[in-house]
């Protein structure tokens, strides 16, 4: 069969909402796009462990500590599913992680911002996980089977995380004046970076068009961003807090919240590596990987020795 015919069958499947599975034929560019996107998603989970992990030892109650520890652990689990999904496309976990450590692969820029107070743990859950969920809910219906299934599992846990984050802020918002200040300060710092999580405006997004035809992506950046603003602008009222945007207002006709201009200079600057924690996050990951090298080598050596001993025993028997 010619490539043209294969491509035709492939696109027909996508149009008919039939999932593409690892052994199916797929265009190289589709495979490449998926490897890039899924590994970026995986790295975001792994790097995302760090800003929240920063508060595990300082969580203000034993219950909060347990919840946060379990949450960060969930993220490690998400990273695992996603690395497994990239492996189904023929890219090993080692290769994928090497690309992260070398700086070649990207991850969500949001994790290049610091967590300064306990309020940030609430804001990450509510805003960052909230933004991520909108994207991941869409990705549950993505055309590639293993990625779709990974997202279904992830979404189940993420919605729990978002509720927990909101609940942290709710308690702060009903607390002492200092706690209210912690709450508002966290919202102020995380609001704009959360909006940036949806990526560039539709006209300026490089990978969007082809990804939409392949149904990897099913909603545009701006559509998802609007959905997010509409949701958060309502929820913030329950907290009795404000969003740091003087231009935010409800439009009766469109039934949407209009919002101010995102600082795209900041967005591109953080993407390029100049965010407050880009260097620190990557250094921490590299250090963990390097410090673990002897452990991985030992585990391999031991399992080889064991296999050899077993073989030896089998011979004797």
């Amino acid at each position, binding site marked *: 069969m010619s490539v043209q015919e294969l491509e035709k069958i492939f696109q027909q499947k996508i149009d008919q909402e039939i999932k593409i599975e690892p052994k199916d034929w797929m265009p190289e560019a589709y495979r490449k796009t998926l490897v890039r996107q899924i590994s970026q998603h995986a790295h975001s989970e*792994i790097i995302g*462990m*760090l800003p929240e*992990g920063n508060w*595990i*030892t*300082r*969580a*203000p*109650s*034993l*219950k*909060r*500590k*347990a919840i946060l*520890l*379990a949450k*960060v*652990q969930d993220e*490690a*689990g998400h*990273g*695992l599913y996603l*690395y497994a999904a990239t492996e189904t496309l023929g890219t090993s976990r080692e290769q994928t992680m090497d690309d992260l450590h070398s700086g070649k692969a990207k991850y969500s820029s949001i994790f290049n911002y610091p967590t300064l107070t*306990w309020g940030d743990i609430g804001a990450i859950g509510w805003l960052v996980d909230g933004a991520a969920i909108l994207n991941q809910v869409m990705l549950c219906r993505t055309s590639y089977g293993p990625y779709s299934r990974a997202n279904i599992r992830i979404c189940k846990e993420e919605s729990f995380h978002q509720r927990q984050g909101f609940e*942290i802020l709710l*308690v*702060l918002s009903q*607390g*002492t004046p*200092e*706690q209210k200040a912690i709450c508002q300060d966290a919202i102020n710092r995380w609001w704009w970076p959360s909006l940036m999580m949806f990526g560039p405006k539709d006209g300026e997004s490089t990978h969007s068009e082809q990804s939409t035809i392949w149904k990897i992506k099913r909603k545009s950046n701006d559509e998802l961003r609007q959905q997010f603003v509409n949701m958060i602008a309502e929820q913030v009222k329950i907290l009795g807090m404000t969003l740091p945007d003087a231009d935010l207002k409800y439009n009766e006709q469109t039934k949407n919240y209009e919002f101010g201009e995102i600082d795209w200079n900041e967005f591109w600057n953080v993407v390029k590596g100049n965010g407050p924690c880009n260097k620190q996050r990557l250094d*921490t990951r590299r*250090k*963990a*990987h390097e*410090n*673990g*090298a*002897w*452990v*991985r*080598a*030992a*585990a*391999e*050596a*031991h*399992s080889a*020795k064991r296999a050899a001993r077993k073989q030896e025993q089998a011979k004797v028997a």
Partner: protein
Amino acid sequence: MQTLINYTLYLADNALILAQRNAEWCGHGPILEQDIALTNISLDLLGQSRSFYQYAAQLINAEHPSAMPATEDSLAYLRDVFAFRNILMNELPNGDWGQTVLRQFFFSAYQFPLFERMKHSSDATLAAIAEKSLKEVTYHLRWSSEWVIRLGDGTEESHSRMEKALDELWTYTGEIFEPAPYEKAAVEAGFGVDATSLKDAWMERVSNILQEATLTVPAPRWMQTGGKEGKHSEHLGFVLAEMQFLQRAYPNATW
């Protein structure tokens, strides 16, 4: 009653401080799967500490009714170093992965026979917590034993790192089996487990695993003690400073 409170707090503090130390690894482990595994152990220990603290708080409140009743959080977050009863080993810095898994192994090899006996305690609550925790500890013991073997028997580097970890930790293992006065009183009262009686089982298990790991059981040496009676190393103050920061900085706030 005070004996039961002290004994329960000892069990709680041991679990909490090790949970706190293990949690420092979260996001920094050598392999993603093992990062998850150690976090699991940390979560289990945290859960155990909460069960013990909740029980201790209930006992304290029954004994000393107060306008500010004790809670699991007041016990974890508002006591100073001298009131903590955990063994010294659990408050030591993590060291490398080898030292962390070896400490976990030493501790699990103690918790396992401890809870096996405690599940028959005359105190129904202690018995119930022990029974529930035993399932978790069975896994911790298996996991940490396997890692000690793997690293001891792995490469030249891992072997020498394990020898160093063994040298670092051994001097803190004696304290486990030196009963504090409240442990002795707990045994006399019938609900506590005699720590000295666990030593042989512990030593046998440790010797077997170390042998399989091609490591040598260190010769008898001076053993550091004091943690059980509130005489700690300098490390615990920093553990508490970090852990208790928010509760101390914003007194009487709800989180």
